[in-house]
């Protein structure tokens, strides 16, 4: 990978936190007033990756995995214990003022907008803070208002907006200054299907048209499947996987699912190697086939030969299952 095209380089990133131990009870609480016990926690353990300009990366991992910590380091608001990060040639935490002009950030849990102000005022302020030329500001605002459908929300104080409405405004705010890199920390959390759809489309368009490099952390597999050609899986502070979604399905998706609708209700015993059968109801069964031990075609043949079947569907491995599996057992070829 040519380092000239890498817009983000993360090398051997480590971050440790000192966590205070709080003791319960009044007497113990008084004791901690004088002496405090610390525990050292490894939030991020030696993570490295490179990202090229224009990529759309999904970062997934369970809660507390270190995703947010990594994002915070990359946005410059957290200093790592060791390792280095270069984004667009900047060291985020050392050159904050110069660096931050070129990035957009959306924290899903907290709004970047001013709570008591209507979005239009927040945008106005951001225009001044980021020194956005008037015509570019107008153009972007118009475009975003249309695509994200926030025109009607412009004059309502942010605190009165629903989560979905607020998120769309936050998204618009983060891109007003045409940043080259966009960081999103759980942007679709708590949103309904319609809102998610709007946001995903917007992100897809932004990435395609403006070639904005986008890094997205999420729990939502739907985000991943729709948006991210490449994902990085993080758990317990370490990088477990860095590659495409398709590959992960190929490599780790060893199970396929057969859903069979039988004509009559049956009480069978399915004792076949590599096949796990679960009853959905008397006439419907789910067969989880471990493709390393049994072939789909063989299983299908056996079912068809023994029973009268209404319908059979074969389903792709569920990416969520796969990933959960990876969390549980770590990487194994």
């Amino acid at each position: 990978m040519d380092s000239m095209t890498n817009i983000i380089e993360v090398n051997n990133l480590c971050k440790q936190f000192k966590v205070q131990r709080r003791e319960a009870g009044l007497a113990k609480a008084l004791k901690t007033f004088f002496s405090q016990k610390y525990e050292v926690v490894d939030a991020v353990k030696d993570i490295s990756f490179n990202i090229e300009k224009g990529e759309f990366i999904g970062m997934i991992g369970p809660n507390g995995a270190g995703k947010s910590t990594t994002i915070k380091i990359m946005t410059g608001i957290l200093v790592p214990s060791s390792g280095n990060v270069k984004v667009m040639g900047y060291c985020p935490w050392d050159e904050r003022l110069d660096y931050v002009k070129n990035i957009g950030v959306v924290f899903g849990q907290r709004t970047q907008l001013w709570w008591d102000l209507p979005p239009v005022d927040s945008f106005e302020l951001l225009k001044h803070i980021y020194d956005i030329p008037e015509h570019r500001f107008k153009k972007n605002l118009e475009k975003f208002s249309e695509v994200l459908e926030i025109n009607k929300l412009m004059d309502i104080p942010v605190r009165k907006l629903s989560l979905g409405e607020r998120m769309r405004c936050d998204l618009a705010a983060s891109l007003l200054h045409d940043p080259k890199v966009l960081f999103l920390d759980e942007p679709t959390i708590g949103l309904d299907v319609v809102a998610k759809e709007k946001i995903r489309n917007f992100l897809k368009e932004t990435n395609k048209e403006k070639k904005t490099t986008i890094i997205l952390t999420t729990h939502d597999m739907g985000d991943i499947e729709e948006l991210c050609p490449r994902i990085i899986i993080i758990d317990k502070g370490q990088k477990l996987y860095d590659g495409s979604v398709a590959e992960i399905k190929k490599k780790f998706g060893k199970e396929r699912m057969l859903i069979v609708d039988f004509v009559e209700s049956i009480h069978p015993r399915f004792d076949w190697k590599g096949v796990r059968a679960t009853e959905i109801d008397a006439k419907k069964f789910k067969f989880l086939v471990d493709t390393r031990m049994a072939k789909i075609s063989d299983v299908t043949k056996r079912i068809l030969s023994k029973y009268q079947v209404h319908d059979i569907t074969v389903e792709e491995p569920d990416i969520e299952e796969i990933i959960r599996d990876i969390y549980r057992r770590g990487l194994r070829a």
Partner: protein
Amino acid sequence: MMKYLAYSKILIISEMAYKFEFVMNILSTIVQMFVLFFLWSAIFSWNNTATIGGFTLSEMITYAVVGVVIARILNTFIEWYIEEDVKTGNIVMMLTKPLNYVWYNAAISLGEYSDAFIRTALPSFIICILIFHIFVPDPLTLILAFISVFLGAAVLFLISFILGTFAFWTTGSIWFLRSLKQTSITLLSGSFIPLAFFPELLRNIADVLPFQTIYHVPLSIYLGKISGFAMLQAFAIQIFWIVLLAVIATLTWKAARRRFVALGG
């Protein structure tokens, strides 16, 4: 009755955890007192008089300092709480519980007063005695003064409650009303300067308002400025205001409740 006291107790216990704040509050109080101590000492020494407005230096310092002690007890935010209840809709919960809202708030106030008394006022008072050598009256007078403080606190609570009910008509007005209340108290209650100092017009105004029952009366009793029959009169005035304000409070609460229910809750 007990159920209301339970609220008071909860308040006291929840506040006990903050040791640092405790020390800081005391320090803060002492700083305030030192300003007054030096101020009055300077005034008296420069003017080379034994008494000003009928007060000796020792009495004046005692007046000012004990005034601060009382102020520490009477830190109340009942208007805010009521406004908060209305804003958050919590008031609905209050209306559906078998509680009298006035007594409920009174219990909270009692809890806050008691908490402030134990944690800030009492220690400050003891420190005053040690540092400033303030005048301390005989036990009987002390108890009577304490009762008077309590009565004054009741008056303050009632005024605050009445102002708080305005939240049912307009939120956002509470801040202003509270400011008005505070400034009236500062000026007319004798908290900082004895009413005896005031020119006639102001004195007359202060005398007919309830604010003077909060500071002027208890402090005067403490210093022995009023005793015997005059003290009984003073108590009577305090009780008069309590009764009058209690009636007004009940009326405004009833009106507020009616308005609230009429508006659909």
